[in-house]
């Protein structure tokens, strides 16, 4: 075990994952502890909690509202998120002791997932530069987040298609993290950059706008059922 890069990167990844878990828990707890004194569902809304949950699942999987708001943004955003989800799932190959069957099946389409992710990301970034309304509302941190994701994605794609790294050694390193028995990390610069950027992304995730997914589930305008009068009705018998 060398202090650099093995132990440094192990520590970095532990720290960033801790920041992700603790930060997200803290943020969620703060949201949930904030009272909601008023009934504010945006109507028409489901009339039961089960209906709200069903709509949330649909919204989470298909971005229904975004589709209605802007089909182009939907296309780019949905493509990006689906690509991202597929790519993340493929990373399970490094985490689990044995290569799960469906993960290996998925990995056969890895190029497609990467293409979706990059195309969506490029489109979303282009909007921020080309559409006058979106350019106006874009802050430096919006670009920073896109740059961070792009950095992780591009270094990943380079390793996969241009300058392959020793994936067996990478898996040994990740398994070492999972089992708390550190293993050496290959010293390729591109791999180190990939891990460094990913760690940064993981660590900042809970503290900014990237929490918009959980935010949807907590937001009373969507999470409340349209049942104000029923709730208030005196129960008889």
């Amino acid at each position, binding site marked *: 075990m060398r202090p650099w890069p093995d132990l440094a990167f192990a520590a970095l990844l532990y720290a960033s994952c801790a920041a992700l878990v603790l930060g997200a828990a803290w*943020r969620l707890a703060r*949201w949930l502890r904030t009272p909601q004194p008023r009934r504010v569902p945006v*109507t028409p809304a489901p009339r039961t909690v089960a209906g709200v949950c069903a709509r949330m699942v649909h919204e989470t999987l298909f971005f229904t509202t975004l589709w209605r708001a802007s089909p182009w943004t939907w296309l780019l955003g949905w493509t990006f998120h689906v690509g991202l989800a597929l790519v993340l799932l493929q990373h399970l190959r490094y985490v689990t002791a044995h290569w799960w069957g469906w993960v290996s099946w998925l990995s056969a389409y890895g190029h497609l997932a990467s293409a979706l992710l990059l195309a969506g990301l490029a489109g979303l970034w282009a909007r921020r530069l080309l559409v006058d*309304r979106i350019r*106006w*509302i874009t802050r430096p941190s919006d670009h920073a987040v896109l740059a961070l994701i792009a950095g992780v994605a591009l270094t990943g794609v380079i390793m996969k298609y241009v300058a392959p790294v020793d994936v067996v050694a990478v898996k040994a390193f990740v398994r070492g993290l999972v089992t708390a028995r550190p293993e050496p990390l290959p010293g390729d610069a591109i791999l180190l950059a990939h891990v460094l950027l990913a760690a940064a992304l993981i660590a900042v995730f809970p503290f900014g706008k990237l929490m918009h997914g959980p935010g949807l589930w907590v937001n009373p305008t969507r999470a409340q059922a349209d049942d104000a009068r029923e709730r208030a009705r005196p129960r008889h018998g």
Partner: protein
Amino acid sequence: MAERDPRAMPAVPAVTPGAMAGSRPHPAEVGDQEALGFPGARIADWHERAVARMGELVRGNRALRLAMDACMHCGACTDKCHYFLGTGDPLNMPVARQELFRSVWRRHHTLAGRWLPWLVGARELDEEMLERWYTYFHQCSQCRRCAAFCPVGIDTSEVSQAAREIMANIGLGQRYTHQVVAKVHATGNNLGLPEPALRDTLEGLEEDLLEDTGVPVRLPLDEPGAEVLLVAPSADFFAEPHVDGLMGYAKVFHQAGVSWTLSTVAAEAANFGLFIGSEDNMRRIAHRVREAAAGLGVKRIVFGECGHAWRVAYNMLHDLAGPFDFLDPRYPVPQHVVEVTHDLLRRGALRLDPAANDHRRVTFHDSCNVARASSMGGVPGGQFTLPREVLRAACNHVFEMPRGATGAHTFCCGGGGGLLTDELLDLRVAGARPRMRALAEVVDAHGVTHLVAICAICKSQFAKVFPRYGLEFDQVLSLHQVVGDALLMR
């Protein structure tokens, strides 16, 4: 005038910074500020107080907290606000309007905003920012169209209400809204009508009704033991076309044989406390309804045609002034007059002759607060179907405006949220443009002659801005006017 053809401009304008920077309402008067429990004039430590109040509001309101935390600047809302579509001013894009508030929130209440203000867009609440707040939080009618399109459900009306509440708390209220709230506190209605004037008005309307129908239709005031307390917006007592709607409710109750009464204590459905986000003032106004219902011993509370009033009544009345356990538990509390008429029609208790409206070709305007902040009839989407079913029963020629301009995606009239004041007329005319575009479509395609509404603000706004778009002021109707005209009386 440039507005005359609402389709002359592109549907989504180019970004035009500063286009509406000069539009702001008159500040509230000292007496009205104090009547609402706010300081009369700008306080010396306004900055500290505003920042502190901001923290209190965000910590006490989850929807507002999520508006601070969950926006990803995706821009889905940027072409949804009628004030942006009508003016092109980028600060009328909902996300940009929210950002006026969020940037101050970040600066004072987040680590990133304190350490890296340039990166995350954190701004100081200085005189310039305060002026922007006063300008642009009074260019939001709190219609929630942006919220309906937001992928995470962020509601600009929450942010606008909070901003106005903070400004009121440092002595910077808005004259029109605060005047109205002060009048309700003093007299029980937005207009400040004293009891004798109200009684006199109602007697005059009874005479008109007798003359028109030959039937002694009553407009009872403060009658103990009536079945129904009707809480109408006070504009219904004298403004056109509102008053025809009031006479329509009276005909419906008369014909159905339901005893009812108006009340001097709660001669106002509207609750402008909502527009300034003031829980205390909303509660005081809502309690008048409770007081009136309890005092008169009624069994049901029915709200008249008023958009935001129905939002407050439907979603908030119980929390503000409940429980209403002294009312008849067989009826929802409260009810909308459209629900009452719809139910009577379904049960065959009313007979309508739609041919009586054959001289009218109408379209229905979904009022924003009814559409996106309430429901009717206990069925999803009832706020859209019930009024239309009532309208179709009363009129043979009903046409729908284009999709995207009705139902859940309806456009605000341009005068809601406390903006129905003369000094904001340019904003109101511009903000009405998306609605006028949609209306122009059905006027051209189907020869529509009238727009039917169920909101006092919509009616006043359209009566005012129609002439700017080449229509007559009287081409807006109350739903219950159309019903009343078709009702077979005996």
